[in-house]
């Protein structure tokens, strides 16, 4: 197990200082050109050396006829060439002394026996020159913290805390926008492709050592180095949460068996066992994968599984209570002192049992600061789940009714929202308890967006919020069990 990022074979793949690029041209209608443009648009800070047989410049960069002509030995080679040219290019990289490569090109093992032979040749070249290869048939890596994104899609949003190792390239590139809209971003994301040399286990190990990665997500279709995977995952889980989505368990493997046990052991059951034994949280969908990552990457550790729910209306409260129950979370009774203190804030129609239902919100400041503060101070409450009725809409209407002109409206609204946001962001810090919101409105509304970026997860549904909280609780149980075992 590596202790420092620099020891990982992926270090100079994720954090290269200089790059040679095969397969980009001045024709933008080419995969290579699109990928090079992604690197340029994120502002990669090191030199990029395109290799091209004819062009003098490629996308404004000085082009080289051969990798042999480069003025230095780059850390990384990115190869996006037609399949039949890939092995020769890798061979030249080896002769130049390049030690890392991303092979984006397809046409290898995924194509059957003919591709298999080609992949074996690729692997033998890589071994001969000791080149660490990611791919072939992959999208490589995205490392926003290093301003490095050679994937075909431009990066959106800020660098984040979510590490991803994926056996599908799409789940890197297609998630840039999704993560941004949900208040997250990648720390580093790997697409492993055919795993000719480097595989998902290497990526997991890298992410375990990566200081920017607070939570690791995995998209798995099949792991070949099973025992290594388990060893590495177990080593990481005591320090950092791992969430995995496994897909691909078919029943075909079950039929050939002579025993009941064999007949009942599909890959899905085996992966379920592997995840449990390694302390990996299993997600059932891609949405869940990142819902869990959001909670695990932002929330302070919970002391238990007891949730207080705060709403201004019955329906959202009842559905949240139902979702929490199904997720295995408890709704504790509030302590008498808490109920007493709440009365000062609540109208006589309100319910002071849990869920706390205001029925009518007298005051935004109280809803987002005073009341949650009282709830979080209760020793029976480990976490707060709060319904985000839409403060921005209310503020705007109040201002308008108060005769504020449209020119002033925006500024006053901003000031009010900023203050509410600041007050609310203080709560989890003050009590060191998880606070999570849910809403049916857009996550891009002013205050919601600010809260997301400030580290309060807000989900588009109580069900999703409850499951994420349950995953968070589960991880911290696992973590303390792992630590107890190590002490033993």
């Amino acid at each position: 197990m590596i202790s420092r990022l620099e020891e990982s074979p992926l270090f100079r793949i994720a954090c290269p200082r200089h790059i040679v690029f095969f397969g980009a041209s001045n024709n933008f209608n080419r995969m290579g050109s699109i990928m090079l443009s992604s690197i340029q648009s994120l502002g990669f800070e090191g030199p990029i050396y395109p290799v091209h047989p004819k062009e003098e410049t490629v996308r404004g960069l000085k082009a080289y006829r051969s990798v042999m002509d480069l003025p230095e030995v780059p850390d990384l080679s990115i190869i996006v060439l037609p399949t039949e040219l890939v092995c020769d290019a890798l061979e030249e990289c080896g002769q130049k002394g390049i030690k890392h490569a991303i092979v984006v090109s397809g046409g290898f093992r995924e194509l059957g026996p003919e591709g298999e032979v080609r992949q074996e040749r690729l692997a033998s070249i890589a071994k001969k020159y000791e080149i660490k290869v990611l791919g072939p048939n992959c999208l490589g890596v995205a490392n926003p913290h290093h301003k490095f994104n050679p994937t075909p899609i431009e990066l959106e949003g800020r660098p984040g805390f979510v590490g991803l190792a994926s056996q599908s390239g799409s789940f890197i590139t297609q998630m840039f926008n999704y993560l941004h809209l949900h208040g997250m971003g990648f720390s580093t994301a790997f697409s492993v492709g055919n795993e000719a040399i480097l595989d998902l286990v290497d990526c997991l190990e890298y992410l375990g050592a990566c200081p920017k990665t607070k939570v690791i997500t995995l998209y798995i279709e099949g792991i070949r180095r099973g025992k290594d995977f388990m060893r590495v995952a177990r080593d990481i889980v005591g320090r950092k949460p791992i969430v995995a989505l496994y897909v691909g368990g078919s029943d075909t493997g079950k039929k050939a068996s002579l025993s009941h046990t064999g007949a009942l052991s599909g890959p899905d059951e085996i992966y379920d066992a592997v995840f449990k034994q390694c302390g990996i949280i299993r997600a059932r969908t891609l949405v869940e994968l990142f819902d869990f990552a959001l909670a695990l990457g932002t929330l302070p550790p919970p002391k238990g599984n007891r949730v207080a729910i705060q709403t201004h209306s019955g329906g959202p409260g009842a559905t949240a209570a139902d979702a929490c129950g199904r997720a295995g979370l408890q709704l504790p009774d509030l302590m008498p002192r808490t109920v007493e203190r709440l009365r000062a804030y609540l109208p006589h129609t309100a319910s002071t049992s849990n869920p706390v239902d205001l029925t009518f919100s007298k005051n935004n400041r109280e809803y987002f600061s005073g009341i949650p503060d009282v709830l979080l101070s209760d020793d029976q409450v480990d976490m707060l789940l709060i319904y985000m009725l839409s403060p921005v809409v209310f503020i705007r209407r109040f201002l308008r009714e108060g005769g504020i002109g449209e020119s002033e409206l925006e500024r006053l609204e901003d000031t009010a929202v900023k203050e509410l946001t600041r007050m609310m962001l203080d709560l989890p810090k003050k009590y060191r308890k998880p606070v999570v919101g849910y809403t049916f409105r857009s996550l891009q509304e002013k205050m919601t967006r600010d809260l997301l970026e400030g580290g309060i997860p807000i989900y588009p549904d109580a069900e999703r919020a409850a499951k994420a909280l349950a995953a968070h609780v589960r991880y911290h149980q696992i973590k303390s069990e792992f630590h107890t075992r190590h002490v033993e």
Partner: protein
Amino acid sequence: MTDPISLIQTARKEGRKSLSEYESKQFLAAFGIPVCKEVIVKSSDEAAHEAEKMGFPVVLKASGAKLTHKTEAGAVVINLKSKEEVKKEGERLLSIEGCEALSVQEMVPGARELVCGLTRDPHFGPAVMFGLGGIFTEILKDTVFRIAPLEERDAFEMMDEIRARKILDPFRGEEAADRNILAKTLVAVGEIGLKYEDVAEIDINPLKIRPDGKLVAVDALVILT
């Protein structure tokens, strides 16, 4: 106690791909897994004699290398209460095609049946199964797995993960299942998988819970690689 290796070698020599039920139970017993009393005899007279020694009621089964699906072949008779019954059924079983001997077994009381087994995953290695046993195992599919080696805590987690977990609690006048023996059994099955490359799969079904909560393997099958 029989040496587990010699059981495998004998089966190999005879060109068999699995151990007989009797051998399978001997094999498992060598690892501390509780198995029911069983005696193999050649004639119905001997069967009647052994049954009396064991105490009635007994179970009588036809035994033979090719008889793997005994229930379907009508080769299992339960609840025989006298020497005469054993003798009569023994004659009938010996006439079944493929029957080479008779197995006399104690009739294990208890209403609850579990299953436990071993399979091999090409990438993760031997894996242990635990769940609800009996004839509906594959229909109800209430089973969970762990990759070997298992720690005892893994075994206890498995017991809590099946839907029918309450079957391990006190039930209709029968005592709670002995979870410690169950855990040791599951751990042992995993160890067999790690230690014996020759063992491809194991089924212990049913693994019965006696009314006093003790466990006993009533039927077992060890399949070789």
